[in-house]
């Protein structure tokens, strides 16, 4: 897991272009560091499995990529979730937290997860809000991928 060892990458966001010092000086909150140092659910699930939904998203402003996968059982409950994120500490922490939260939830419950909840839990500063947004979009993409798979499965 080289991407975890090589030190927290600075997310060079373009939003604060005029005042880079503000971003660089912003320290990470303890919750972010906890998820960053002990990320939960890192890894991959079988993409081809019909019970697995995969969400792959990226942040053009940072160059971060995030893959988030969920595994759903026959009752529509999410039994497993994995992620792989190449990005800054906040993006890694957001996706780690997101996988923790969706586990045990139903597909419908998971859809209700908001980026603001993630941002609040991690105390993300305004310039890092898009990292939690990325995690929300990743979950939504994974859920939608799962649904499409199920629909085509049912049709056949």
């Amino acid at each position, binding site marked *: 897991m080289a991407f975890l060892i*090589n030190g927290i*990458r600075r997310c060079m966001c373009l939003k604060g*272009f005029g005042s880079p010092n503000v971003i660089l000086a912003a320290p990470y909150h303890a919750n972010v560091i906890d998820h960053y140092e002990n990320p939960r659910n890192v890894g991959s699930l079988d993409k081809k499995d019909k019970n697995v939904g995969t969400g792959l*998203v*990226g942040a053009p*402003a940072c160059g971060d*990529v995030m893959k988030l996968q969920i595994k759903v059982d026959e009752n529509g409950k999410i039994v497993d979730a994995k992620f792989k994120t*190449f990005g800054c500490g906040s993006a890694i922490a957001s996706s780690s937290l997101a996988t923790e939260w969706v586990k045990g939830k139903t597909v419908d419950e998971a859809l209700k997860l908001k980026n603001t909840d993630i941002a609040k839990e991690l105390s993300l500063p305004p310039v890092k809000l898009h990292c939690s947004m990325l995690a929300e979009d990743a979950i939504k993409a994974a859920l939608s991928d799962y649904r499409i798979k199920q629909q085509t499965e049912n049709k056949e």
Partner: protein
Amino acid sequence: MNFLRILSNNSTKLYITHQFRFICWSCGKDPKTLVVNLFCSNCNALQKPNKEDNYFKIMGVSETYDLNENDLAKKYKDLQKYLHPDKYANRVKEEQEISEKYSSLVNEAYKTLLEPLARGIYMLQLRGKDIPEKTEVDQEFLMKIMEKNEEVESAETEEEIMNLNEENKNKIQSLQKQLSTAFFEGDLKRVTKLLTQLKYYTSIDNQIQSVIRSKGIIR
């Protein structure tokens, strides 16, 4: 007066006509021309930077994506020779403050224009556009980026990482060439697309460089 001698030595080639009507904050006169575009020709006081000038104007380089980095570096050193706050230790407070602000503005401009990605984004912003904030969903492209990141992560030998480094550097270079064309043609949609791609590849480059450092590879 070493300072004045530098000015008079250079003044013949560096005199630039100031086009606007302009009052020197220090002596209250209109100097008509500014010595090396910085000083009042009447009282030699350092003038404030023109608020309307963009980074290219401040640095005195032509406004183009493929600017000559050596030329930019030379302009930067020249400017800081005149602007550095150390040179103003014995001047009035107002002039010291101007020098501090001006000098840090020049630092910022230099940093932005030197780096190809930052330069591109800045040029895009000058044209009233920005890199989109919304999430990228181009699956094929994201897959490619994810795979490259994974390759970098799992690279073990020096040869592997150096190959990835070369490959990625070539990719970045080719994107820069395309960017230059897109800027030249004024195709801002394409510029935006290329810049976001460049952002992802620059991110991979940062990964590669930190692996190279952590492996202690000396080039």
